[in-house]
């Protein structure tokens, strides 16, 4: 494992920790209003305060959980869907493959953001888990496409034929012979989906289509934007949340490079 991958894992572990303990270590109630209105970062308020005197540091800490939960739930759901569709299509071939490939390509080509915005704004209560489910429905297609291609190349390999010749059933061949050989692809698809889901959730919160009652990094940005934080020069209102998003995204991307390099030795750095 190289340095970049370790760095990625370290940052991810850090945010995971914050997601778990953030609520307890937050110095203030993130929604509680205070007397310091729109004050820049200080000893009392590390990331400054909002228009109504809420502590932004606490909002970031508490908001981490929502971000990580959506990432995890979407990652699991969408990866499951992509395996189901992609591996089935690649293994079965023929008409089933044609139909499933078309389905995933349709979902890939249709612009997901406006669609999700519509769905989210039509839902009467768009809470975290529901949003995660909706995001998953649009996030599986890329993974399915990659898995299908990989499965197709595995399907005709002799060890699959050999398993059939020894009398293995089709589902067992898919689950125990093909899937273990796709581990790297599945892992990288999972991480990619988490990035996608986190970005989308934050975007939806920023745009204001999901419930603002729970904190996440996107809702902080929503309030910053709707209170004209920019015009008032309150950079501290939107910089921390944005940096956290970028850091988490970078960490996940680095982990994915690690997986890619593991799976494709040609990408490994040349050593002198």
């Amino acid at each position, binding site marked *: 494992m190289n340095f970049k991958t370790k760095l990625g894992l370290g940052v991810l572990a850090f945010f995971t920790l914050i997601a778990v303990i953030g609520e307890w270590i937050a110095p203030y109630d993130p929604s509680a209003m205070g007397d310091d209105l729109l004050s820049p970062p200080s000893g009392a308020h590390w990331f400054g305060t909002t228009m109504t005197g809420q502590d932004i540091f606490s909002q970031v800490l508490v908001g981490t959980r929502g971000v990580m939960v959506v990432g995890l739930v979407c990652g699991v759901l969408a990866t499951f869907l992509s395996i189901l569709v992609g591996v089935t299509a690649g293994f079965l071939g023929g008409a089933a493959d044609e139909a499933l490939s078309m389905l995933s390509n349709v979902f890939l080509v249709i*612009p997901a953001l406006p669609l999700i915005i519509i769905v989210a704004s039509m*839902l009467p209560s768009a809470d975290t888990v529901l949003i995660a489910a909706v995001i998953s429905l649009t996030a599986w297609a890329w993974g399915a496409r990659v898995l299908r291609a990989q499965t197709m190349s595995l399907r005709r390999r002799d060890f699959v034929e050999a398993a059939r010749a020894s009398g293995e059933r089709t589902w067992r061949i898919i689950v125990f012979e093909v899937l273990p050989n796709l581990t790297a692809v599945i892992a990288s698809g999972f991480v990619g989906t988490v990035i996608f889901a986190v970005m989308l959730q934050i975007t939806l919160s920023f745009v*204001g289509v999901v419930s603002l009652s729970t904190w996440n990094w996107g809702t902080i940005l929503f309030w910053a934007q709707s209170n004209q934080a920019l015009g008032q020069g309150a950079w501290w209102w939107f910089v921390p949340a944005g940096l956290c998003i970028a850091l988490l995204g970078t960490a996940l991307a680095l982990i994915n490079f690690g997986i890619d390099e593991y799976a494709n030795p040609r*990408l490994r750095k040349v050593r002198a």
Partner: protein
Amino acid sequence: MTFLLRRALFYLVTLWAAITMNFLLPRLLPGDPVQAMITKLGGRLNSDAMASLYVLFGLDEQKSIWAQYVDYWAALLRGDLGLSFTFFPTPVADVLSQSLPWTLGLVGVTTVIAFLLGTLLGVYAGWRRGSWLDSLIPVTTFLSSIPYFWLGLIAISVFSVTWPLLPASGGYAAGLVPEFSGEFIGSVLEHAVLPGVTIVVSSVAGWILGMRNMMVTVTAEDYVLVAKAKGLSQRRIMFAYAARNAVLPSISGFALSLGFIVGGALLVEMVFSYPGLGYVLFQGIGAKDYPLMQGVFLVITLAVLVANLLADIGYLLLDPRTRREG
């Protein structure tokens, strides 16, 4: 030719799927937001407008779902997307036709620039693996991990608020009338700089990385080795042998990630109050303007599909294999 026909057929199916989703969503999801809006607007809606909203959002429950579907298609084919609540009483189709050119201009140009720039940088980074260009990879990764809209916010904060160099919002200076004059065009370009640069910066990293990895893979292929053994110039091998083959997956990736990029670009428009579809969508969200939101979705989907078809044609021109099979 079969290749293009197959692709065109696929895009038709996709369009059909998008339209059908648009039809089903308000009927499947609980609540009747449009009904509520109609009640609120009360007598200000004329009977024609009311009728088309009924058709589009399935408020007429007397009819079978199939009859509703047929009516829906008939309305769409007439270009009737209902009335916008936000820009009441302007029809949605009119709002969209005003904002579409802005989006096509901004997103079209920046996406092409980002693709070309990223591909070129990726070619160099992949060819000279291990050089200083490679150390840019983590930086570009970081840049691409930043949400488009946040980068836009930062850009505004730095270049409009701290140093007021460029305008932070709008498509052209207030007070100007859209016309074909030097002043107006200059103003449009000036207003496009910040949102444009934002889109390019956040989308370029993906192309760099994809192209770099393809180059690394292709560089190890036999035909590149043979070209080297023949003593061809580095430039020629890099572009005519390696890059030409490496770019193909990049182009098919271009087609598939277009939906994603357009989503990001819409957000940039929201942040910069740029008069394109993204900003219209943003205003629609605030007002729960479903006719407008659904109209935006349909138009964007259509635009993405057309762009995909163009990318396919590009692929066809570059890859002789698809040409022969066709």
